[in-house]
């Protein structure tokens, strides 16, 4: 199969959906000629023009609200928020408006809005440009939350997100944009709410999200040498969450590690651990092990920052311990 980078896969999804549906448009800071600061959208404006690829002022709240209004009235906007840290500025529009309009109106209004934003540390971008804040959005009924981990998933999930009638927040790991992977040529979508077993195994389950899927797969490869068979499950969407897939895997292996790049405290690992602890209670040999980002603002200095994100070595170590091999 042909290979695309994560960034290319995202662009391809947008191109296809914009071709397919004239109500889809993109708005955000430096999305047009600049093609975003990450160059993910390079050339898109040449294809669709400035009417459908719109450079905005630096107004995260305003642009998100604009997306809500456009979505309520027949368009399918894709709002680009450059860094996930900047959703802090748009939380009222995302949470009090986008997420609630459908419910508050008794189902009369819909907000088919996609907010594409980023996540992830280790770019030495320090505390205000490195956060992975999706746990906040997953907490809010009315929103869907997508965390793709491969180019193929990114493409298929983004297409589903655009076609979805709910507001969807789509988090892209900045460090993954250049990573390549196979992407089918033929049209396809990946449904929201279906987990994917990225590797099957029998001894221990690693539930991993976004950037941490690769880390989990690396850990799994290392553990193979130690005779430990790892299953890696990627929920792909936090909301809807494919609870049964997580629980099934946990029942099979009896040992679970949850790895995620959001802050560990009150984060995604807690929900997933709780879901598994409840659903697979009698099958667990040990408590679900949580590994999130360290509970500190992300520091600038590389020697500090690199400690804050789970590594393959750390995950492998935890797995060995869980399996009584450490």
């Amino acid at each position, binding site marked *: 199969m042909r290979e695309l980078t994560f960034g290319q896969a995202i662009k391809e999804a947008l191109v296809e959906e914009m071709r397919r549906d004239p109500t889809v448009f993109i708005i955000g800071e430096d999305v047009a000629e600049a093609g975003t600061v990450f160059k993910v959208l390079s050339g898109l404006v040449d294809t669709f023009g400035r009417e459908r690829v719109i450079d905005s002022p630096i107004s995260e709240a305003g642009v998100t609200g604009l997306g809500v209004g456009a979505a309520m009235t027949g368009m399918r906007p894709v709002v680009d928020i450059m860094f996930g840290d900047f959703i802090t500025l748009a939380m009222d529009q995302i949470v009090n408006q986008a997420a609630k309009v459908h419910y508050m109106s008794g189902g009369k209004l819909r907000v088919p809005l996609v907010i594409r934003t980023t996540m992830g540390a280790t770019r030495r971008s320090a505390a205000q440009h490195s956060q992975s804040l999706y746990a906040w959005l997953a907490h809010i009924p*009315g929103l869907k939350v997508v965390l793709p981990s491969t180019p193929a998933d990114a493409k298929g999930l983004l297409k589903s997100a655009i076609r979805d009638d709910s507001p969807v927040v789509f988090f892209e790991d900045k460090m993954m944009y250049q990573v390549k992977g196979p992407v089918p040529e033929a049209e396809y979508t990946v449904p929201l709410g279906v987990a994917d077993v990225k590797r099957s195994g029998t001894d221990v389950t690693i539930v991993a999200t976004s950037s941490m899927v690769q880390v989990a797969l690396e850990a799994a490869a290392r553990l193979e040498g130690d005779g430990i068979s790892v299953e890696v499950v990627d929920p792909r969407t936090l909301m809807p969450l494919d609870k049964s897939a997580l629980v099934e895997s946990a029942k099979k292996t009896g040992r679970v590690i949850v790895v995620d790049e959001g802050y560990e405290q009150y984060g995604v690992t807690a929900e997933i651990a709780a879901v598994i602890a409840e659903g697979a209670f009698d099958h667990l040999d040990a408590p679900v092990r949580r590994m999130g980002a360290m509970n500190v603002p992300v520091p600038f200095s590389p020697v500090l920052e690199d400690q804050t994100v789970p590594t393959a070595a750390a995950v492998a170590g935890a797995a060995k311990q869980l399996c009584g091999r450490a």
Partner: protein
Amino acid sequence: METGTQRAIPAIPKEELLQMYEQMLRIRIFEEQVNELYTSGKMPGLAHLYIGEEAVAVGVCRALRREDYITSTHRGHGHCLAKGAAVNQMFAELLGKAAGYCHGKGGSMHIADPETGNLGANAIVGGSTAIAVGAALSAKMRGTNQVVVCFFGDGAFGQGVLYEAMNMAALWKLPVIYVCESNMYGEYTATREAAAGEVLARPQACGIPVKEVDGQEVRAVFAAAKEQVERARRGGGPAFLICHTYRFRGHHVGDVNRSSYRSAEEEEAWIRERDPVRLLGLFLIRQRLADASALEKIDQTIRAEIAAGVQFALDAPYPEPGEVTQNVYP
């Protein structure tokens, strides 16, 4: 500054004036009933009455077509009614009944009615200012010539998103009219203590043309809104209309001790001299467009409509418990 106050108000056909009178009166009597329902413990939640400000909603919405959009506020009953909402479903919503506009899920502060172009009230001050720009962009992209009106209170001058929104509306020449209901207070704080400088200079700084009108004169409001709406419809871009008005009652129904922020004399003077319903009634009579008995007849018709609406709502069933989990996602 391009203001509308000094200009002569263009003549408005008698039929239209009578309809505006009727609409204002409907809002007035509706709100009096809301007050009644609330104080008698039949209406849950909060009730922010529009009494005193009727000319704004009616004058502005008269300048709109059914397919044009409005966004509304916590003080939104008047906007909804003026845009064409039915009294029955309004009352039903206020009482949390299944027959309400939002099936009882929204309540007073969230009434939405897409059929009349009402994109919904908003309980966040300034919360719909950017949504309105989005609806305007959408209208432009879809090639309709719909216009969007964003109603908001003078308290929203404190909210940053208003400026983000106006800036985008101006940049892209979008068909949105910002209608500020300048009633001198946001809750219990005077706007002069909350907004520095000249508020009208704020939209102007974004290059948005402004008009200033007496918000108690529905004819003036209508004339100004009409000009701005037509200009927007022709592709002339956004506009800003400030309507000087006054809420005759408390911030919400329970706000009874108002002396800490405004005087009884001030209230009485407004109510006595600047009642928008009375002002139009007097005009109609003086201009011999209607006589007292004609107005009285309108009054009776409306009262009957409102009474029937209240009864409809009181009799209507509550939602089924199971509806609580519906409409989270489409």
